[in-house]
């Protein structure tokens, strides 16, 4: 009966029928109370977005899988302390993080949001080393500013890893299906160390040691992961190549005994699954190295399902942690690494499934969903074995990438060559994307653009990439190109809100109020609970100078997701426009609490201090913004202004020169230069600069006004009069009209008698 119930629950979960799943699972737990079953119940709740239920169910449990799920529930309920203790209990400092890569990722996020940047970086790197296709971890590293080059992470070893996974997986599955269960399980166990995932190796390691497997394991395990991979892979591949591979090709490497075993078992395609071919297909897609092997002939069903309910949660989490939902690299690997916390449910199910592996037997679930692959069963749960449902890991992403690869492999036993090309293609793709993303986070926007252009067309024309391109243009202050890129992104994926807040800012800068209000309306109607939509709405009001309503909208965005940095910064901007500097400061500081590298917030703080005439602070903050984004000419020119107010005019001029050379079409630094030169009484230089500006922006009244002022200082009254007149013609603001008219009146009065204009 337990089996039936579990199957029922799994089935319902697969079909996204949460109410049914929860109900049946409760019956299951009542009838057969066990930690595994509680995990399954918690998984059901988590998938149904009821983190609080999962929290209560799993409170106090110790098994790694439960700890992982519990931590996930805490994280979603924003109880970061508890989540942290669950994943890294203080009493066992050396305990392993449950669920490998996914666990590291989750703990990395927790550290990030509690301001422990170094530990966060460490864990993300771990996650990546365990699972090189874990895009979300790489993204977080980029955001924290600690990422290595894309090619380094998504390089050769990663490629090999993936290959191994796929081939290994196939082999394993085959072995699993073998009828000689014992042997198989043993061999499988032995084999597992060969699985490409280091994590697995670790697991296996511990497992095997525990199980005391013995000597050959020792040898196998002692080899480094890659070594094993190679061994394993070659062995595996020989095994795997075709349905009737079982030739005695035990590559002499690695644990011969294992292979021998396998051979002996003669896994034949026919043995594959009792279910027949469907199983094999599933297996192939699954690729997850199974951590634990099913006992006695349990067939692993590798779920061919690439997308399971996990993605929903992943998108939610993605929203929380800010990474894009698009890349689901993690999924591809599926290798056992339990990837991304994005798919907690999946992984959980996986483990649960493994537990219930027993019943798996005989279940031909062609489309077994996710978790299945993972079954591990006899392993004692203390190992973080997880799931992996590789499928689950697949993030639902807008990219067809994984889909493409998986689809092709789905249903087909992946051949060795396919595994190799598939892996290398995948890795190259990820390398490009990763590099592009990293460069963008470092604000080397031109380089990022070049990198993204190397993508094949079908990937370039996806929502995520195009909005990255748009963002790059935005940072380069090429608002027209940014507008173009973003509008294309919207055409391609109108449902995706990622990056739309930046698009609304672009439209704000371009003063396109029609387009902006249309965008805002569309976004809000697509998803009322997305912070990006309300940011766009707020930008719309701000453009019309209705700062109070704009502020309300931005505050709404903050409420919806307090970890969405840009909403805080925009709130800050509105407070400043309303001259409420106290609250503005607070908003900027909260933005910086979420993401220290958000240079807009540093800039905002600098502006407040500039207005409040706290020049030293202003200079400090502008400089910080400059460190983060060293290519923005606007920041450089403000830094120059701040330096000038601190009377360090030479440094100021140097900085301004840099700003001018950084972006030729930006008139601001030129104007600032003229200002500085004027106050240094270098009138000739100032006038030259202003003449240049006159050509660039002939209808800018402030240029003429400043020229008039200079001529007045030089006592060239006719010219001054002329320029003041021109300035007035160009309709300056009311204050300026007053100033200019006053200046005209006092044209013949020497400057010392009046206050500086």
């Amino acid at each position, binding site marked *: 009966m337990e089996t039936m119930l579990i199957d029922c629950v799994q089935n319902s979960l697969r079909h996204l029928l949460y109410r049914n799943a929860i109900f049946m699972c409760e019956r299951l737990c009542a009838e057969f109370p066990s930690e595994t079953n509680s995990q399954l119940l918690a998984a059901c709740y988590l998938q149904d977005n009821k983190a609080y239920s999962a929290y209560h169910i799993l409170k106090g449990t110790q098994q790694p899988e439960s700890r992982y799920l519990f931590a996930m529930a805490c994280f979603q309920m924003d109880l970061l302390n508890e989540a942290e203790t669950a994943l890294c209990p203080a009493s066992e400092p050396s305990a392993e993080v449950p669920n490998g890569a996914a666990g590291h990722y989750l703990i990395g996020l927790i550290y990030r949001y509690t301001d422990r940047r170094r530990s966060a970086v460490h864990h993300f790197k771990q996650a990546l080393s365990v699972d090189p296709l874990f895009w979300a971890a790489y993204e977080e590293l980029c955001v924290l500013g600690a990422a290595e080059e894309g090619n380094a992470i998504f390089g050769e070893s990663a490629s090999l890893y993936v290959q191994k996974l796929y081939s290994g997986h196939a082999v394993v599955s085959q072995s699993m299906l073998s009828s000689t269960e014992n042997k198989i399980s043993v061999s499988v166990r032995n084999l597992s160390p060969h699985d490409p995932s280091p994590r697995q190796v670790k697991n296996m390691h511990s497992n095997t040691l525990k199980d005391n497997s013995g000597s050959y394991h020792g040898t196998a395990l002692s080899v480094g992961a890659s070594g094993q991979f190679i061994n394993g892979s070659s062995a595996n591949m020989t095994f795997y190549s075709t349905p009737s591979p079982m030739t005695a090709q035990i590559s002499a490497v690695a644990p011969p005994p294992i292979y021998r075993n396998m051979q002996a078992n003669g896994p034949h395609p026919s043995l594959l699954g009792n279910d027949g071919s469907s199983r094999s297909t599933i297996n192939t897609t699954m690729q997850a190295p199974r951590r634990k092997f099913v006992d006695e002939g349990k067939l692993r069903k590798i779920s061919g399902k690439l997308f399971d309910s996990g993605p929903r949660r992943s998108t939610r989490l993605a929203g929380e942690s800010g990474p894009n939902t698009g890349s689901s690299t993690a999924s591809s690997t599926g290798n056992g690494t339990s990837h991304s916390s994005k798919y907690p449910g999946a992984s959980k199910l996986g483990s649960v499934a493994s537990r219930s592996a027993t019943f798996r037997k005989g279940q031909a679930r062609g489309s077994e969903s996710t978790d299945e692959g993972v079954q591990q069963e006899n392993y004692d749960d203390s190992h973080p074995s997880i799931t992996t449902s590789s499928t689950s890991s697949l993030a639902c992403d807008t990219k067809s990438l994984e889909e493409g690869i998986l689809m092709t492999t789905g249903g087909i036993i992946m051949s060795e060559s396919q595994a190799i090309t598939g892996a290398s293609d995948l890795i190259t793709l990820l390398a490009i994307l990763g590099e592009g993303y990293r460069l963008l986070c470092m604000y080397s926007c031109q380089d990022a653009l070049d990198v993204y252009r190397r993508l094949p067309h079908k990937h370039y024309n996806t929502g995520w990439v195009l909005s990255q391109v748009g963002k790059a243009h935005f940072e380069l*202050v090429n*608002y027209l190109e940014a507008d173009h890129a973003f509008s294309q992104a919207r055409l391609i994926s109108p449902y995706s809100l990622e990056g739309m807040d930046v698009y609304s*800012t672009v439209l*704000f*800068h*371009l*003063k396109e109020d029609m387009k902006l209000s249309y965008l805002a309306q569309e976004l809000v109607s697509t998803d009322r609970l997305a912070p990006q939509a309300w940011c766009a709405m707020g930008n719309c009001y701000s453009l019309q*100078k*209705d700062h109070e309503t704009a502020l309300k909208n931005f505050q709404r965005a903050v409420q919806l997701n307090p970890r969405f940095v840009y909403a805080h910064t*925009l709130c800050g*901007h509105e407070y400043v*426009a309303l*001259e409420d500097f106290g609250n503005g400061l607070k908003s900027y500081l909260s933005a910086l609490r979420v993401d220290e590298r958000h*240079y*807009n917030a540093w*800039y905002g703080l600098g*502006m407040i201090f*500039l*207005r409040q005439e706290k020049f030293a602070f202003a200079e400090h903050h502008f400089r910080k913004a400059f460190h983060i984004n060293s290519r*923005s*000419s*606007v*920041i450089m020119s403000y830094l120059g*202004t701040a330096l000038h*107010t601190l009377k360090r005019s030479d440094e100021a001029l140097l900085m301004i020169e840099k700003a001018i050379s950084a972006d030729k*079409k*930006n*008139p*601001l630094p030129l*104007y600032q230069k003229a*200002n500085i030169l004027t106050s240094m009484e270098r009138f000739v230089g100032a006038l030259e600069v202003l003449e240049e500006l006159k050509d*660039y*922006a002939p*209808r*800018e*009244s*402030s240029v003429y*006004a*400043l020229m008039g*002022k200079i001529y007045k200082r030089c006592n060239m009254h006719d010219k001054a009069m002329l320029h003041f007149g021109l*300035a007035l013609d*160009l*309709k*300056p*603001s*009311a*204050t*300026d*009209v*007053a*100033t200019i*008219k*006053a200046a005209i*009146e006092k044209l013949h009065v020497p400057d010392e008698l009046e206050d500086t*204009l």
Partner: protein
Amino acid sequence: MATESSEGDEESKIVVGNQQLVVEESLREMAKQAAWSVSSCKPGNGVLSLRDDNLESFWQSDGAQPHLVNIQFQKKVKLQLVVLYVDYKLDESYTPSKIAIRAGDGFHNLKEIKSVELVKPTGWVYISLSGNDPREAFVNTFMLQIAVLSNHLNGRDTHVRQIKVYGPRPNPIPHQPFQFTSREFITYSTVR
């Protein structure tokens, strides 16, 4: 609320009020940061009705003339325009007819800067605070006092439905002598 520009009459006699409140975009409402008080009021029709954006509610005074509305700021601000909503058709003898606007540092040194006479106004009445001198486009002051000196038909108490005070927008870029007007400049002038 700001839309196209419109001009109020500069004469001291204002005959009609506008139905629409239309203010230049370069002006913004200043009095949110101010402390408002009145010389006297009837319970239920107090100073809050002057600021609630509701034209149905009004302030009704309850004492001797002149009736005063005091607006005090925490720092010196530049003010350009005062707008009142009064309605002869609804209020008849309660409608103010002579209004004086005074400015200064506090109650002790208010000086009259503007005086207007209304004749059966219905709607928004614009009172500009600028002097004739272009240099005096704004009044730079801590406090503004709006005094109702007399009403239509010699009424004793007065009804005022809404009061708004406008001043110029500050330069979005601090430490710039002049504000930018052209799109090229504005696009590049800030980081958002």
